[in-house]
């Protein structure tokens, strides 16, 4: 187990809410984005089959187009999407691994790194600070 000296569970409800918001918002945005790309293709394919059947059933090599997509190509797509997700998600976690940084900056207090996360996360610069200006990316 990693060493945690301060009991983070003793922080105030307000501070917890702030932390939860900071951590969950970026993760959920990433997850929903990746899911949307995949769902667009997965749920679009039956529509293509139904409303453009001659296009979907055209011969591509030895297969029909729609067979090639569903029977072969969708698998590598899931790999690409999940590989992208895992690396992006790990990056987000690395950027908000220090609660002091998130709370400190939000509350305008001095940072007192205490054995955990000595490096000021890039996330602070890129996200929280610009949030008030309305650009999240």
């Amino acid at each position, binding site marked *: 187990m990693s060493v945690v000296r301060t009991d983070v569970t003793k922080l105030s409800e307000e501070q917890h809410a702030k932390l939860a918001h900071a951590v969950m918002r970026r993760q959920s945005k990433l997850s929903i984005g990746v899911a949307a790309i995949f769902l667009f293709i997965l749920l679009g394919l039956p529509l293509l089959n139904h409303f453009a059947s001659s296009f979907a059933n055209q011969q591509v090599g*030895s297969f029909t187009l729609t067979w090639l997509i569903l029977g072969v190509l969708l698998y590598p797509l899931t790999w690409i999407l999940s590989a992208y997700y895992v690396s992006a998600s790990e990056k987000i976690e690395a950027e908000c691994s220090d*609660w002091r940084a998130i709370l400190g900056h939000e509350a305008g207090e001095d940072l007192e790194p205490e054995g955990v996360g000595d490096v000021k996360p890039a996330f602070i610069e890129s996200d929280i600070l610009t949030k008030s200006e309305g650009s999240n990316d």
Partner: protein
Amino acid sequence: MTEYGWIPILFVVLITVATVGMGLYATRKAKGAADFFVAGRSVSVMSNASAISGEYLSAASFMGVAALVMKNGYDALWYPIGYAAGYLFLLLFIAGPLRRFGAYTIPDFAEGRFDSPKFRRTAVLFVLLIGFFYTMPQMKGAGTVMVSILGWPYWLGILVVGSVITLNVALGGMKGITFVQAFQYWAKLFAISVPIFILMGVYGSYTETMNTMHQDLTTIPNILHDSPIVMKGKKDAPLNVMSLSPMRAIYLYITDAAVLDKISPSKKIKGSDPMPEGVIQAADVPDRMQYDSRAARYEKLMTQPDGSILLPAHRMIRINPYRVTSNGVPVTKDSKPVRNSVKLEFRDETKVFIPIGAVAMNAPTNGAWMHPFGPLTSKEGYIPLLYTYSLIIALVCGTAGLPHILVRFYTNPDGKAAKQTTLAVMVMLGIFYVCTPIWGTLARAYMPVLYANNSTDNAVIKLPMYMDNHLVAAILIGITSAGAFAAFMSTFSGLLVSMSGAVAHDIYGKMIKPTATDAERMQMFKYAAVGIGTVSMLLGFAAKDFDIAKMVGWAFAIGAASYFPLLLLGSWWRGLTRQGATAGMLIGGLLSLSAIVSFMLIEKKILHLQLHPLMLMFMEQPAIWAVPLSLLIMVFVSKATAKDIPADATLKMLRLHAPEEMGFSKNYIEH
């Protein structure tokens, strides 16, 4: 083939001995409850990913997908992609948070999230419900393989396989099976991939076979060998049905006198006259070897007053297609006369000999098979589209709702490892699933006799049978049989561990005797494994008549309407209350369960109901209404009971989502 009949048996014995042996070896190292239930949370990413894939690739994936592709063509491709895509959604929304929350089982999560021991009961109920539903197809797989390779009765195969696995689990627990299941993934991958490449070299490649089917979309493959088959009787309905193509006359040779319980037109054509008498005829030559279709004379076989037809013994039976008429006028389509044939329903188990060259019975045309919305969904209007969507929802959401898979994420050291594991799992599953439609395609072209007696579930086991080199054929059958064994052994083990864990840890350890020691809980785990194993075998006897992959689809549908909404909202919405989660799970899960069970009873002709096709579709594939219903109920009831949001709900959200370094995560039970 017969002189090498011992080879497949040898392979099956080897994989079974290897499984039990490895289980016992690993068990000696298992110490204490944490090892027993979650393998000490210390399994590496690669071996955990192999173990998850090994556990997930069940009889449905190994035998069922190929079978369903053979039977239904394109539409069946949704099954493997759904099984694989489910992991993407598990990865995106559930894997990380669930591991971080740090509980032993899903009921632990359910209770921990709402601080409610009561809620645990609902969660445990669904572990058992989904588990039992999922064991049925595994048991059918075991029975079917033993029938194919050993000629054992169906029930004996189930009894032997079920007992071996039950004992193995009772002795080893989770630590024992992690190691075994990792091994079994690689065994299954080998068994699904290597033989199919050899078979493509012998029979014809995937692309060649598909090309041949493109040539004529209206045709149906011919049976390529003289084939003795056994038709099931009425008690195994709908397996007793033989639906004939109107392409040309069909000949069958009947050794013993038999009864056709019913004959009816194979295609229903609106407004057509009743079919003519005498389409079924018997030749006057008693010996099959002397039979000559041109010289033979035929007598018409007449329908008895109860609608049945008697087939005389030792006769070649001819069934002629007939022209469809409406009020006595021939019906035409594209200025060609429309022809139809008949659907035979056998009363008792009957030995039927099909001569070479017959048009495969019960088989869809190339076009219906290759194009979307074929036999699996073939109904009018928007129903096929809705069916497809419902299936997708069930499979995608259901993967994230399978308790025996979810419990595996707790064997990861942390949330980050849980995500990496899921990624590795998706690659492993994808490679496996790309191979399965090749089996279905080759089986359609080169072994269409499997359509005739509705035994497409055997495709993976039987396909090598017609190779000229009998020794190689026997070895390939041995490999695929061993793969099938690995498939249902690993999945059944996983289900047993998860269900026995629920009984020992949740029902006994938390509800009945909270003071129970580790030793007592482990003792209870063993008793539970034996009890649940027995019930599973009994359910397996009842599951004989349903497609393996379809049954698994049903387990997914129930999981999708119960666990998936709980885990999704429980992980991402602070406002979910115990009441909301309970109401959503119970209503969504139990309604889908009853819809599916009613559909099964209608299909087996136990329940006689005339329902609109749309209604039937909603019963067969409930996910499209049940998942949104369950989610909505959770949201509305939670809003109404907002005062019961746990006081530390925010802290719980942090435990689910904050990176481990932040210090919120803790294991539900420390070790």
